[in-house]
């Protein structure tokens, strides 16, 4: 699938856990469900001007939801945990 860099990285995920990881140079993003690890690595390196050592991904299936009579699902999501090269940081993320 032909995805642009900004299609791949949807948003950073900032939670208590990911904030703790950021201090160790590991950043978590919500990414396009069809993006590959290689695409994610390229996107992070290009957008944030850093080098990526490792990308771990996990797929989060959508949850069943119901609007009255009609059953449905929330959209599936993909999470990518990106480990940067030693000593590297993404600027501006601390205040996100």
């Amino acid at each position, binding site marked *: 699938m032909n995805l642009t860099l900004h299609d791949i990285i949807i948003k950073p995920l*900032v*939670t*208590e*856990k*990911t904030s703790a990881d950021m201090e160790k140079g590991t950043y978590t993003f919500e990414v396009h469900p069809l993006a590959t690890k290689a695409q994610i690595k390229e996107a992070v390196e290009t957008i944030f001007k850093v080098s990526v050592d490792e990308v771990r991904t996990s797929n989060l299936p959508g949850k069943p939801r119901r609007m009255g009579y009609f059953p449905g699902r929330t959209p599936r999501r993909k999470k990518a945990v990106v480990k940067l090269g030693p000593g590297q940081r993404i600027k501006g993320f601390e205040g996100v």
Partner: protein
Amino acid sequence: MNVSKQEMPGSLVEIAVEETPEFVSEALDKAYRRLVKRVDVPGWRRGKAPRHILERHVGKRALCEEAERYAVPELYERARQELCLDVVGEPEFKDITFEPGEPLRFKALVPVRPKAQPGDYKSLAIPFPEISVSRDEVEEGIKRTRESLAHLDILPADRPLKEGEYARVHVKGLEGGEVSVELDRDFELVKAGSEEHPLIPGLAATLVGMKKGESREFTGKYVVRATKPEEKTGVQPAGGGTGPGKEPGAAKSEGKPQGAGLENAECSGEAVTPEGETRTVEARFQVVVLEAYSKHMPTDEEFLREVGKPSMEEMEKDMESFIKSQKLERAWRAHTEKVEDALLEKGSVEIPDVMIENRTRTLLDDFLRDLEKMGVKPEDYLRRTGLTWETIVSDLKERAKRQIKLELILDAIAENEGIQAGEDQVNAVVSGIAKDAGRDEDTVKATLEMRGVMDGIKRELTRSKTLRKIALEAAERAGKPVPEVAVKPEAVEDKGAGEAGEVQGRLETGHAEEQGPLQTAGEQIGQEPGQGVKS
């Protein structure tokens, strides 16, 4: 902190406060620490979200508002203390500037205790009435005491009741009259004779000449107000049947309405309302004498033994002095009321509305509490008296105005004259409260001081002392001074106890202070609300 004040009309003061940006920053930090514990931020456990995350979640404005909510009243309180303002109501904050990195500025409009102009109270001349006790009053007093010591003797079965004697009777309502009364029960101690029974007309007269076990039928006449046929009343013509056990006033009904009812009935021949037409209806009753009694008045010997006096002369002397002390007490009360009226007339003060509102609310609470104590529902009270909430509140408002004006005038006079309540008087009140609450005196004092009630007690004592002084001087100026015994009743043991008692009474009703929610001294130290501090 920069503080300035400006006096406004209506006994209001505008305080302007300015505090540094550092204070704002600290206030925001405190607000964040409070808020973070209350707000759920997705991805964060409660209380763990960093400030920038929380700010993004709730908004910067919300954080500022939270900080403002605590910082402004805190600064106001500091400013109030710095300016030594005697505030009597809640402040109205305006023009609040609260931005991070900028100084905090706000204005507060507060009602303060106004200073009264007492007028020319030094020329008051009000004579104290002459008190005398007549021979008739002494005899009447002894007669009443003797009657209170009388007892009832059971009469022999064959002895008919005479006028003024008593009987235990069973009364039953019968059919056959114009109205019939649902009644079938015993009545204790009904007096035979001409004095009408309040519920059953004709019963007292019927009893004269009856013996124990005898039964008679009689007719009772009720005077009722005639009403229009369409008007709904307790109209109950005779002939029908309702449930048993009803008292007179709930009659049976059947057939067409007659326009008259026992609800409005009276046992006399007088009209119920001057403008309403009245008519008399008859009801039949049966009475059975269950027991007959004669009243045994104690002989002089028995009487003296009961009251513990050696002779009738001694008893008369004691009675005279008792009546005199009572009259003096009443006269003293009336005298101080006259002095109060005169002070109110001469003095002038501009009372802030909030003071009147607070006091009216307190008086209304007292009134409702009294009704509750009597077991009367407010709506029943209104129905019975024909009053409305508006009239009651308006009356209470007038009372509140009078009370506050008098207090402010007395405060002003006390200041002019340098009158202050003594520590012994304050201690007498505290010890009274402690005794009634069954607590240790020091603990009670500490509690009252902590809650700021002690100032109220002192202020009330000072007012009592001031009023007493003016009342005494006014009587002296008029050439009719107050007898010593009227000011200090026999029961007063120490100097401050008389005034202390008055203050304690006022504290019970919560009139000592008008600031904020009023609590009685008893409630302040942990008693149940409404229990009061006196036993």
